[in-house]
């Protein structure tokens, strides 16, 4: 039957996705504003709540010590969040699959150790040393993937074993020296904390990105309209993306009053955006979401599930290794405690606080950015307050909880409105 058999054929002028009379859509700019307000009221806030939590945290710390919002401290904050934030990108990917990687801390430490030994002790070029460190990371991830696919051991256990084995390797690689300094003048260290994007370039980049986004969205809107589908009106696209652009410009301005945006920070943000595109806009990313949502359904859809697990574990370790390199470059030294302490916990917590589910299939690369911003803001803000350790721990716990409760409250009301 080639003709649609429904007898109640709706007017053809209405886009295909707006024909169902139960679907209540708001049209145009006014409609978008109205819709946004009604969504806000009913609690469908997207990632706004984490942002509100963040703004609250910032406000409180600013009141307690106005140095918190100084340009200088904000630049520090951007630098501080990069290493663990980078690791968290990989964790997000693993969590999207519904798996976990407990060894990201150790892998970052090992990668730092390989970098330092190669670069300092063996005198390799920074490119070679970084390359090998990343390769080691990827190799570890591949081993995890193979073990997982071959034996079906829970990733919790594989990566727990990995955590220990890799820690052993790290100690072995560092050998007698223990701590290895990277010279402050080396390009690796310079990249991490000394090289900043010139203000003009930063502004240009923001304008370029915003312009490209607007053009892409308008083009997509035209394609949708041509395909007989509803499209976001150009006015809404302009206002929404424009608003985002303004915020970014403001950020560049504030950071620019101190040192500005570091190349490492720019790299981190680029990685987040890239990973987000990879996850949302490619077949591979779609497969990752499918496997995380329902691995059996994905398998039955003909997806090569093993390949997905393998690539994601490899990527997770890759990001962990890259995070380790950033950490080493920032600290200008690598030691046996690199990647230890709470690197693991912070990276996983960042992903979860940013809104990625531990159960797979729900989340986005941006949660790495948002989550690490929350965590580092708390830690940075408390650092300004000279609290007793006991209070510092308690306040950290409390603020963390508060930030997430704000987020969950809105999720809750979203669920009650059936939009979970």
């Amino acid at each position, binding site marked *: 039957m080639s003709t649609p058999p429904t007898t109640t054929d709706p007017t053809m002028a209405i886009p295909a996705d707006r024909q169902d009379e139960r679907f209540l859509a708001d049209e145009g700019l006014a409609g978008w504003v109205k819709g946004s307000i009604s969504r806000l009221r009913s609690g469908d806030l997207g990632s706004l709540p984490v942002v509100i939590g963040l703004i609250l945290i910032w406000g409180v710390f600013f009141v307690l*010590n106005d*140095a918190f919002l100084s340009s200088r401290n904000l630049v*520090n904050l951007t630098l501080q969040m990069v290493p663990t934030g980078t690791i968290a990108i990989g964790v997000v990917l693993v969590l999207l699959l519904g798996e976990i990687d407990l060894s990201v801390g150790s892998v970052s430490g090992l990668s730092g150790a390989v970098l330092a030994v190669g670069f*300092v002790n063996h005198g390799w070029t920074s490119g070679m040393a970084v390359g090998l460190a990343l390769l080691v990371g990827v190799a570890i991830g591949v081993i995890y993937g193979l073990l997982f696919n071959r034996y079906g051991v829970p990733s919790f256990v594989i990566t727990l074993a990995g955590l220990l084995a890799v820690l052993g390797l790290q100690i072995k690689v560092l050998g007698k020296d223990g701590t290895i300094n990277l010279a402050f003048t080396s390009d690796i260290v310079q990249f991490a*904390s000394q090289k900043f994007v010139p203000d003009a370039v930063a502004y240009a980049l923001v304008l370029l990105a915003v312009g490209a986004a607007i053009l892409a969205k308008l083009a997509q809107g035209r394609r949708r309209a041509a395909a007989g589908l509803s499209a976001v009106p150009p006015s809404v696209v302009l206002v929404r993306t424009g608003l985002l652009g303004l915020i970014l410009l403001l950020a560049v301005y504030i950071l620019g009053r101190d040192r500005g945006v570091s190349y490492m920070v720019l790299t981190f943000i680029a990685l987040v955006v890239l990973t987000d595109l990879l996850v949302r806009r490619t077949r591979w990313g779609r497969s990752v979401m499918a496997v995380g949502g329902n691995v059996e359904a994905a398998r039955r859809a003909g997806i090569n599930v093993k390949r997905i697990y393998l690539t994601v574990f490899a990527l997770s370790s890759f990001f962990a290794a890259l995070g380790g390199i950033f950490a080493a470059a920032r600290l*200008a030294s690598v030691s*046996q*405690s690199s990647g230890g302490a709470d690197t693991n916990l912070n990276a996983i917590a960042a992903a979860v606080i940013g809104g990625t589910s531990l159960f797979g299939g729900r989340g986005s690369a941006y949660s790495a950015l948002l989550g690490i911003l929350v965590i580092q803001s708390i830690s940075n803000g408390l650092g300004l307050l000279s609290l007793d350790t*006991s209070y510092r721990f308690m306040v950290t716990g409390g603020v963390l909880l508060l930030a997430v409760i704000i987020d969950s409250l809105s999720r809750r009301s979203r669920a009650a409105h059936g939009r979970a």
Partner: protein
Amino acid sequence: ACGTNSGTSTTSAAGGASSSAGTTSAATDTASSGGGSAAGGKIALLLPESKTTRYESFDRPLFEAAVKADCADCEVLYSNADQDAAKQQQQAEAALTQGAKVLVLDAVDGKSAQTIVANAKSQGVKVIAYDRFVAGSDYYISFDNKKVGELQGTGLVDALKAAGKTSGDIVMINGSPTDANAADFKAGAHSVLDKSGYKIAAEYDTPDWSPDKAQAWMESQLSAVKSGLVGVYAANDGTAGGAIAALKGGGVSPLPPVTGQDAELAAIQRILAGDQALTIYKAIKPEAEGAAQAAIALATGQTPATSADKEGVPATLLEPIVVTKDNIMDTIIKDGFYKAADICTGDYASACTAAGIK
């Protein structure tokens, strides 16, 4: 990971009395695992953690070599507790199971290690408190670590004076809040700095002795302490590294003096480069050799030589040394702790020449 496990000693002796209270139910031990048929027998070396290089790079090999040299049929059992007191207790139990005659114990927590001592005593095994004092032990060898914090404080004040700063703000980066020993360094440093005339603007207990945490905190201080930062007390070389990275990253120039501890290779290099003011060097070789000799003596039923007494425990106390650019040659290199070639790699070669190190 602290490099600061340099014996803390001032724990109260309150628990000491109870150390003899271990019941004798273990005396019925029938473990067949042959304890000391040889003249020497087994000596257990129990070290506290693995995140600092000194233990496996220096203490263990030096100790084993010294035992081998003096007692060919002695066997050294080794374990490392990863900074976990319960794990150390377990390792001590394993050593006793294997029939060790002497435990050389570098305690994770000097106070809670009294359990280990009591357990060993109930089986007639001797305990040497190595590097960290444990009440009730049979012998104690360590540096006069009461002074470490004080030396750090004094060193910092001297460096400040040398730089012509008579007043200003100091920040303190202490050791781990959950490490019983860190508190002692902190106290020692305070005893000097509090009355030095400088203002302690802020102070931070670094979780896990983590260099990155020290770096992040130091960075925030650069925003908070807007002016007048003249010196940084860092409890060990790891945290010192973090602080220096923060100062350099923040564009502070010239760097204020920064202290340290442990004489890590990386710290020596920083001192040469002028980034770090000083570190505390504890000559491990005499300590390890002294412990080895005492262990052999106790294993064979003799009394080890002593030079001091600590809360009733015969002791040998060694002196920690402040290392600055000026005395690297006379201390570390002279002792063979590092070779000049280890230190004077790549970027540091010129600094070495300038400091007369070869």
